[in-house]
């Protein structure tokens, strides 16, 4: 095949894909093989609509919950009577602070979420750029994940969290020094206790160079940090960052073991500004199936445990609790906050906005056929970073619109007032959901 044909081929498929993302949600029937219990076909199509229009779908597509039969999918809000709702003319504040300590740099984001860590190699540079551009537009953050910091992303450094994980892949002094927030990833929800995993097919020359590894060889981040066996050791890590970059905020990303509440308290005492709890049902990377389903608890069950324990210790208002691992919709975000989180971290949702069908073939051969979780030159060309920015930005716009509407109907003027308000929630019995 001549090299001249490749741009035409990419363009042809890109056009057809964009056409498909637009047409499917309006076709009146659902793709028969699309979706799963967590992301039913309607929710995927509804996310595509939001990424295109910036508003929730108006054609009856379910955009609020999935069909998992538990957790967020069984929680509803109990709205207040009309007289107590916030009038349309009054503004609703959706901002949150990411530093609640009385010292260090105050950082505030206008929406209670930012982008999750997805490494270069697990996703393409185009996707990293699209996410960074959207983060800049919304004055929030995205995260490098554990795979290095491509130079092209440096332009958006004020909106990029540098992640340090157990393999230290791509971690350099300059990438730590340029980051407003540095995140230590102790564990991740998709494979709690197992470390990162990049299969050999995706460790291309460019990826390996960035990670300072050998091309085409699978990369396993060890688990856990081999330099951390205690909270005191973790403090040493935090001190190391503060020595290198004194004004950086420190985030600690952990999974959801039985003692997640104790881990939270330990993180607080080491000086972390953000505790990022990643539940077991999320994740975008390759993971053993047995780990995804069976290890650690879902985020819905971890948030209240951590929130209450921090409150009981009298330190809840000094640390920011960010929740991730299965946050799919604006309603999930609101429910997570009502359960006790300050905000959420989005990963899969952003990929779905960019066309992910949740087919779970990210790790196979050339990687994602939609050009998302791949570094294959032809496939990654299917996503233009500017197009990606627009899709993510519009999804954010829709989420904010929905969140504002929820807060208004709950009689709250700020998303900060929603935190821990379980009295505003209603639990639907699983049988009632099935019947519905």
């Amino acid at each position, binding site marked *: 095949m001549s090299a001249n044909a490749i741009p035409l081929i990419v363009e042809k498929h890109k056009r057809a894909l964009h056409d498909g993302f637009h047409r499917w949600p309006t076709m009146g029937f659902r*793709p028969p093989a699309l979706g799963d219990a967590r992301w039913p076909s309607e929710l995927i199509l509804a996310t595509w609509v939001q990424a295109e229009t910036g508003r929730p779908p108006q054609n009856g597509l379910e955009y609020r919950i999935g069909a998992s039969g538990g957790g967020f999918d069984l929680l509803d809000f109990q709205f207040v009577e009309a007289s107590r709702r916030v009038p349309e003319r009054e503004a609703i504040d959706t901002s949150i602070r990411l530093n609640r300590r009385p010292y260090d740099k105050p950082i505030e984001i206008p929406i209670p979420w930012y982008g999750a860590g997805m490494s270069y190699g697990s996703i393409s540079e185009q996707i990293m750029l699209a996410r960074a551009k959207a983060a800049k537009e919304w004055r929030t953050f995205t995260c490098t994940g554990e795979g290095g910091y491509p130079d092209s992303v440096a332009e958006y450094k004020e909106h990029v969290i540098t992640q340090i994980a157990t393999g230290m892949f791509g971690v350099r002094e300059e990438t730590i020094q340029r980051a407003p927030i540095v995140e230590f990833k102790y564990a991740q929800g998709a494979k709690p206790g197992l470390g990162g995993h990049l299969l050999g097919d995706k460790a291309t020359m460019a990826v390996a160079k960035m990670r300072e590894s050998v091309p085409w060889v699978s990369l396993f981040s060890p688990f856990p940090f081999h330099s951390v066996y205690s909270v005191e050791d973790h403090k040493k890590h935090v001190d190391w960052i503060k020595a290198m970059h004194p004004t950086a905020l420190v985030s600690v990303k952990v999974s959801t073991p039985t003692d997640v509440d104790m881990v939270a308290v330990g993180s607080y005492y080491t000086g972390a500004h953000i505790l990022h709890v990643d539940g077991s049902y999320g994740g975008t990377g390759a993971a053993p199936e047995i780990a995804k389903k069976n290890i650690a608890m879902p985020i819905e069950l971890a948030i209240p445990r951590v929130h209450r324990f921090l409150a009981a210790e009298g330190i809840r208002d000094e640390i920011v609790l960010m929740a991730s691992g299965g946050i799919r919709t604006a309603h999930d975000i609101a429910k997570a906050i009502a359960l006790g989180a300050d905000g959420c971290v989005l990963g899969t949702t952003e990929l779905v906005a960019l066309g992910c069908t949740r087919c779970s073939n990210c790790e196979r051969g050339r990687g994602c056929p939609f050009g998302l979780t791949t570094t294959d030159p032809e496939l990654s060309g299917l996503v233009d970073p500017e197009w990606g920015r627009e899709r993510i930005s519009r999804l954010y716009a829709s989420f904010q619109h929905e969140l504002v509407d929820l807060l208004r109907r709950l009689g709250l003027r700020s998303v900060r007032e929603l935190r821990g308000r379980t009295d505003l929630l209603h639990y639907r019995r699983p049988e009632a959901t099935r019947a519905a």
Partner: protein
Amino acid sequence: MSTYQRYHIDTQAKPDLHAHPSRFRVKVRRSRLIGLLLQELVEYKANMPVVLSRPCVYGVFSGPLGGLAPREHLCVGCLRCTTQYPGIVQIHPNPERSGLPGTMIGPDAVDTILYEARTGRVPVRGAGYRGPFGGSGWDGMWTDMSEIVRPTRDGIHGREFISTLTEIGEKPMRLAFAADGSLLGPSPAVFPIQVPFLFDLPPQPVRSDPLLRVLADAARRIDTLAVAPVSFVASEPAGPHLVPLVRARDSWDGLRWMPRLVLLEDWDRTRFEEARKRFPDARIGVRVDAARDLTEMLSAGVRILQLVADDMGQAGGRFVGDVLQEQHKRLVERGVREEVTLLGSGGIGLAEHVPKAIICGLDVVGLDLPLLVALQATFRDGSIRLPALEHDWAVQRIVNLSASWRDQLLEILGAMGIREVRRLRGELGRCMFQKDLEREAFQGIAGYEG
């Protein structure tokens, strides 16, 4: 000089004998496809690489006739083709895929087991969990993990060692010594196996000597046990991996060698005493319904019990995990748990069920139906059929499955920071139960009733 060798299961790719129904059906509207090709011929001025470029990266449309004759066995369900061309191609779940009716093994579980038996590898996929939120039975349990404790995932990849060795037999709760240091009272009478699962007696419709020989050879290869009727065991050469199961009507007279373990079907005190005399150097176990009261057996000196559940994981009308926890706790309360070995049987469908059953109290988990799935048994109209078994192929498939399940057990143990599987037994504190977590998280929320 002996050389230490780390325990390892040798795997070898063994393809399926016959194709399992593919996960998806690819339906193409040929007239529309031809129309599209003609349209693109004009649009791209007959630039054939562009015109013929297909949306599928898995080769479904790369056969000689392209999309006119899609190769649907290659379809992985990414849906890119139907996303791009919804009017031309549709991807459907294949209705021919089936699980095992009346068991906990559904179509996806069959796919998983076949992959494990083919490759011996741990199934790895992207994009997070796709299933329901928790669930009943084993699905309502989540295992713990540790943020900082070793052993680590390194253990799974060989730099550290996580032991899956389990001991079967009877042990005194403590050793007693005389003043001169000599041992007083009984010493442990146990033997080890290298994995905490054994190959249980296959169900009657497919039970045959060739199948039993496959399971016996696979058990020998990986150093575990295979349970077989005493008549079969008697006809085989002596082997420490064979466990004769003796029913009330069976005679053990033909058995000329001394097995390590003999299992008696159902409880009969006289038979138990006779077996002890007949097999003085063997351990004698009793196989009973998992929900049965064990008091009389324990009083009579039974110290190895195989607790049997049905194919749905039910015993006494309840989930076997709950029943096992109760049995385990009763043994603890009675002060004899360390003296007793609990073997399981039934209700195990996937690798994840093994650690969960051990957490509930089993020392060794019995496998049955997954072994038949690995050998590509078919389940139609309530009956099970096995294909004609080529012995070496079948043995390797079982070995592969065992390797995959052991590696998945290591994933669970590594995540928990547990260095040996024996420490997992009854470790309910390292497990989270959905009903408990939901009660804690949602108590006080309107509508939640516990």
